[in-house]
């Protein structure tokens, strides 16, 4: 059996999966599993390569996918229905907000099983904010407050490598993952509420993107930074703020405190959910389903998610983690009004369109020839494409 895992900037996820597989192999000595780690783009290309030439480009038996890819690839016939074969799904042992989006159109079928989730939040080092922020809970609740605080923060002496803001996991350019929480925070989105038209250029959406681009323009975040290349990951001690959707390793030692993502009016947050799916072309559906069922067992799901600072999706362990979490209060606020990316057929493509917009703009910002009209023009073009897609699919 072959498994494709989505790559992660935090290598602990790959190691955690390796150890998960070792335990599975110990429990089922007859199993023969290989896994490879694919980037999001690599996985996307592999799925379409399979559709074009299934013989030459076989799919893995089990695949980790972003939850909102489920609708697209199930409609294209690539995924197996898991609802009857997987007890956790049959018994609906997942939080309602996850199932609601997963089974958007059909209550009885589910083509992937929710595995783990993460929620972008703001981390800060109180020491670094001395003299810049009096009351972090209040001042950092809004985007404007956060943005003003970024300007007031000063690098401490003997910290030449200090940065006001760090965004672990950035691919170098501004990406959809960076801007979406802010777009959501402004109550924008990629589509209208009835999903009949694209709204890339709507004021709230464009404004949310612009908020993040402004951080790059003003140098608060560095584009295409060679930092990780030549200096490794930036230690938390070198930053005043970190925006991350993961619990940060050693956050207690660094004195990091956590707050919800700034400027989220509902007090909740954007949740990113990742699922396991079984390929419709697998030769051994039973074995693939058995692995997914095993990975979803509370002990296994919990250990895997814990190892790289995310939440398991299974309801019992999710609630347990929430209870035991040091920042329980913040997480409870985040999960009080959770919002998920729509699991719609054209949504993943719309994200790719926006990704291309952000790549073009990132290059312009890095070359220092970016102008506000560039954003408007790019968004109008991408919106036209997304509308066209909606008319086709």
């Amino acid at each position: 059996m072959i498994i494709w895992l989505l790559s992660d900037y935090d290598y602990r996820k790959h190691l955690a999966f390796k150890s998960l597989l070792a335990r599975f192999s110990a429990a089922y000595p007859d199993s023969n599993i290989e896994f490879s780690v694919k980037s999001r783009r690599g996985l996307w290309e592999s799925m379409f390569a399979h559709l074009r030439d299934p013989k030459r480009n076989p799919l893995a038996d089990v695949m980790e996918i972003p939850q909102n890819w489920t609708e697209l690839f199930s409609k294209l016939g690539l995924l197996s229905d898991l609802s009857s074969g997987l007890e956790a799904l049959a018994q609906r042992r997942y939080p309602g907000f996850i199932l609601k989006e997963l089974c958007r159109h059909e209550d009885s079928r589910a083509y992937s099983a929710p595995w783990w989730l993460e929620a972008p939040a703001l981390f800060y080092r109180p020491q670094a904010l001395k003299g810049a922020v009096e009351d972090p809970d209040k001042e950092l609740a809004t985007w404007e407050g956060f943005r003003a605080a970024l300007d007031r923060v000063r690098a401490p002496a003997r910290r030449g490598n200090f940065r006001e803001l760090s965004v672990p996991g950035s691919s170098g350019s501004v990406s959809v993952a960076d801007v979406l929480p802010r777009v959501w925070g402004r109550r924008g989105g990629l589509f209208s509420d009835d999903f009949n038209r694209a709204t890339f250029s709507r004021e709230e959406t464009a404004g949310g993107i612009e908020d993040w681009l402004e951080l790059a323009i003003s140098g608060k975040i560095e584009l295409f930074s060679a930092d990780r290349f030549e200096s490794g990951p930036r230690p938390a001690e070198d930053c005043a703020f970190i925006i991350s959707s993961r619990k940060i390793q050693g956050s207690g030692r660094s004195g990091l405190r956590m707050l919800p993502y700034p400027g989220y009016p509902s007090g909740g947050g954007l949740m990113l959910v990742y699922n396991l799916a079984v390929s419709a072309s697998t030769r051994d559906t039973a074995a693939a389903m058995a692995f997914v069922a095993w990975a979803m067992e509370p002990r296994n799901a919990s250990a895997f998610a814990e190892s790289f600072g995310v939440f398991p999706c299974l309801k019992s362990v999710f609630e347990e983690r929430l209870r035991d979490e040091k920042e329980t209060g913040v997480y409870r606020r985040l999960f009080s009004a959770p919002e998920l990316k729509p699991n719609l057929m054209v949504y993943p493509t719309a994200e790719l369109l926006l990704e291309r917009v952000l790549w073009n703009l990132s290059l312009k910002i890095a070359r220092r020839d970016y102008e506000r009209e560039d954003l408007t023009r790019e968004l109008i073009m991408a919106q036209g494409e997304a509308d066209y897609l909606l008319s086709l699919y």
Partner: protein
Amino acid sequence: MKKSGKILYGAEPVQPFYDGRDAFMKAALEAVSEQFALDGASFYEYYEKTGLLHLRQRHACGVSFEHEENLRPLAGSAAARAIETLAAASARTPAGSFLYSPFRFDYCDPAGGRSIIPCFGLVSMERSPRKRRFSPAESARADAFLRSFLRDYYKAEFFSLHRKYDKNVSAITELTEVFATALRVRESFRHILSGIQTYFGFDRVRLYLIDEKNRKLKGELSADIRGQIKSIAYEEIPLEAGAHRFADIVLGRSSGAFMERYKDCVLYMPLAVQGVTIGLLIVDNLLSQQRIEPQELAMLKSFGGQIALAVDNSRLFDKVEELSLYDELTKLPLRRYFNQRFQEEFYRAERFKQPLALVWADVDYFKEVNDTYGHQIGDKVLKEVGRVILSNLRKIDFPCRYGGDEIVILLPQASGAEAQRLSQRLSQELAELRIPVPFSKTRELRVTVSIGVSTFPQDAATMEGLLEKADDALYWVKSHGRGKIALYSDVAEEKKKTAAGGKTDVNG
């Protein structure tokens, strides 16, 4: 040295071949990590235009993985030096020791193009701060080790391109055959679309044809990435400038910046024969947002003429067939076509024990109409009769202009009573017709029809018998005042009674 690439050919391989560049990169990083006790190794491609390094593959903590990372080396750094001088360079930072081994080779496009394909990048090798740094001797050894691997990278790349080239050659051969043999419209359009999908595998292919009469661009068929083909006949675009992007393309008008943005994942290909545009073929990768390779675009464009000819040929073939099977005046099938269908329907009725009715109609005094008012008015009468008949039939019914003013209608799964009801409806509608005759006193002409009906299996057990009985019934109507309908069963009953001395009205 362990090389885990898939060996594709050669019994005793000295140099293994890797199944594509990903397999090669993974093997190279795993091998160099093991050989030089590295904590991490990454394979980057360098894009000179943007000055960015793109991470392709990384190996760390015993796991190889793809990851998305784009970065610009700091000016003056070891990595920047390595790219500039194409020589290995090392550095020590608080994060550990780094060794950068650059590579660059250019090769000709194996597809036969004149372009040079550059392959430029570097491999980064890392050790944690606790471990020893890279000595000059070790750096040289690691660089040499990687260069020996890169010879295989060249081969892996070349192999991938060669495979593409092979695919293209097959596509040219087989698609040419598909286009050359396409004849009947429905089937040929399907063949053309599925042929394109088999070899190119686009997200979607759509075919639109120009309806010159109505000045419209009409949707024909669409094939999706899974090869499923469906009709898009519901799509109709007015062929006017500015009405739609497709119309503008067909009319040869520029469609501006929007098209420019699309050019990597959509191809709009107007289909032209002898300088006349007959349709539009659209292929796209809009859902996957994947770039259509320039070679694929070029090849598809080169097929454009053949596709257009195939489409045009199949339309002409259908037109010729239509002319030989249908009567131009009444739009009803001709006797030859009817005989073929009659045989099929009769066998079906026999096999499934279903009723089959045959209606034989004749326009009353048609010869006199021709003689009195001329053939032009006679033709008008026949045209109207054809229209009325076609508008009153079910989809499974089959009418035919049997000869002159005689019309035969086949009614599968219909009983005598059902055939009689249809005949009454036709008779009534035809009687209500007013054919304008400007030069006559009445200024108009009215027509009636005589109709005879026979049914299988009641009246006859053979095709000839069924025709004969319907003709008998028609003859009975004609000899009893015309403008009426008779079922053969009633006529036979009447004949029996007449023979026995009685008389009954057989009209419905």
